[in-house]
């Protein structure tokens, strides 16, 4: 029999706004109720939010009292007045171009690091050079820059330095801990397991507190570690334990056959991990990894408990001024937007990596 079947055309996609509405918003009774509720909520909240944020907001005023008299919305005049305190903390006012430069430099380097064509052997040296420049700008004391002790550092540059250094050190440390926890050597396995479980078992706040109060007690007499460094160490310790568990999840998801094939080819332990195991394990764990990195970035705000003026604490300090007392909402909205911008970027970037990896493997 010859093939005489009439070729059936692919069904035409049915389109149109009414059909779209029915399919997506009113597909069934529950769906319709949800749609109505969401629309009602938006109608109730959006205009009020818009009024507060923009239409009734006050952009020019000399005190919070003037603000409140001029309009019922947000007092953005407060941000205009205090943004440098929030962004740079107690850093000497005339020298604040230096932390500004630090922020721009770190953002630029983070941006460059995201681009694949810069993933060369020069990236690590570039970061080290960047951190040296950051140190010179922040501390000064050389090249005609006045010396600024790090007790006066604050605001966004402090938050960024804490977060970037914590992530940069904790990530490799976390990978080593994850490998150690799966090691064949009982001593290494025990040490890594105890470290991870101890650190994960206590709140980050208590780690910071311990680093701040207990670490000096453990050190020999006369030796003193700077408060900022102690906070930085606590953040690294905390982040590395969480990252280790995320990475371990990825390691466990690989089949035994991958390890065996690498062994059978004669690769050494470190070659096997670096070339075969970690590239696959880290790829699988991108979503939880980025989740942890975002958490670490935001948890830098916990340094407030040991009295560092990071972005969040600087915001709190900004509305202590009697003339602007009562502007806490504006301050929090302002810093929230900054935090959000960073975290949203990380989230989007991880999505783009996932998409590209999915394409490259056709899987």
């Amino acid at each position, binding site marked *: 029999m010859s093939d005489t079947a009439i070729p059936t055309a692919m069904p035409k996609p049915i389109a149109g706004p009414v059909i779209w509405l029915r399919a997506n918003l009113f597909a069934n009774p529950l769906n319709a109720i949800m749609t109505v509720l969401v629309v009602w909520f938006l109608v109730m909240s959006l205009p009020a939010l818009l009024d507060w944020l923009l239409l009734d907001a006050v952009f020019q005023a000399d005190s919070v009292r003037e603000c409140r008299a001029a309009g019922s919305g947000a007092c953005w005049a407060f941000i205009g007045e205090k943004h440098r305190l929030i962004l740079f903390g107690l850093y000497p006012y005339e020298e604040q171009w230096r932390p500004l430069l630090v922020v721009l430099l770190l953002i630029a380097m983070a941006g460059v690091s995201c681009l694949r064509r810069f993933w060369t052997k020069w990236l690590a040296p570039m970061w080290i050079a960047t951190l040296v420049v950051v140190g010179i700008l922040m501390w000064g004391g050389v090249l005609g820059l006045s010396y600024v002790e790090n007790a006066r550092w604050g605001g966004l540059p402090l938050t960024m330095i804490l977060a970037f250094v914590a992530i940069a050190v904790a990530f490799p440390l976390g990978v080593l801990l994850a490998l150690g926890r799966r090691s064949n050597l009982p001593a290494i396995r025990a040490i890594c397991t105890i470290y991870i479980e101890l650190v994960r078992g206590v709140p980050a706040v208590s780690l910071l507190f311990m680093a701040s109060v207990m670490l000096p007690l453990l050190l020999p007499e006369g030796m003193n570690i700077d408060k900022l460094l102690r906070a930085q160490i606590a953040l690294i310790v905390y982040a590395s334990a969480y990252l280790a568990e995320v990475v371990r999840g990825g390691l466990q998801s690989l089949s035994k*056959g*991958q390890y*065996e094939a690498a*062994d*059978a*080819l004669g690769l050494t332990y470190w*070659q096997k991990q670096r070339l075969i195991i970690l590239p696959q394990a880290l*790829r699988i764990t991108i979503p939880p990894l980025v989740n942890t990195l975002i958490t670490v970035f935001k948890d830098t705000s916990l340094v407030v408990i040991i009295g560092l003026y990071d972005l969040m604490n600087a915001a709190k300090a900004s509305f202590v001024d009697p003339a602007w007392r009562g502007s806490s909402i504006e301050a929090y909205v302002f810093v929230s937007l900054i935090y959000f911008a960073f975290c949203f970027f990380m989230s989007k970037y991880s999505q783009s990596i996932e998409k590209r990896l999915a394409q490259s493997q056709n*899987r």
Partner: protein
Amino acid sequence: MATAVQQPSDEPMILLEKVNKWYGDFHVLTDIDLSVKRGERIVICGPSGSGKSTMIRCINRLEEHQAGRIVVDGVELTNDVRKVEAVRRDVGMVFQHFNLFPHLTVLQNLTLAPIWVRKTPKAEAEATAMKYLERVRIPEQAHKYPGQLSGGQQQRVAIARALCINPKVMLFDEPTSALDPEMVAEVLDVMIKLADESNVTMICVTHEMGFARSVADRVIFMDRGQIVEQNTPEEFFSHPQNERTKLFLSQILAH
């Protein structure tokens, strides 16, 4: 054979003496004695759970034996990592489930061990890899990822990958059992061609009796962790001695 002019040709390529292994209380290998000559082709068969895979996995120490001696090309396998690495450099292995590296292209899969283990320059390693891809008849797939290939193609890549380290011994652990039926032949063809064209020592765990007939110098039957019977393929298939061998052959040749 004309190619039998090898240097210390009387020393066995692989020697197992009184090898024993337990998984917990389960005695998986019992007093295994086996001597494999250079260039010899051996097919191992037996019911599932008979210890045949475990035995060949002991030869490159993917599994550790607990008693007895295993010597590969004069190197005894012990806990010494350097000896294990030395043996693995000369022993290629093909797995039931291919175990290609999914994040690397076919070519990268093939050049990995030559570049990192044997320190071959990249260009030379790639030329060798292409040569072997041609031998397994899929040079056009070099820049694809394993996930884009069929099962049969993946297993042929896995064979090429094992050959790229220029091994003295090739171990095949049920290379066709995970394949769809229509792909078994293409993989067996490659293995037969390999046996014809090279003098590499081959040990193959398989139930493909046609392959055993045409390639093997010796067929070994294992059951319950022991070597029950071994013979030339002709004798093995036409005059099996042991009752268990007869039962096994009747089961797999029945249909």
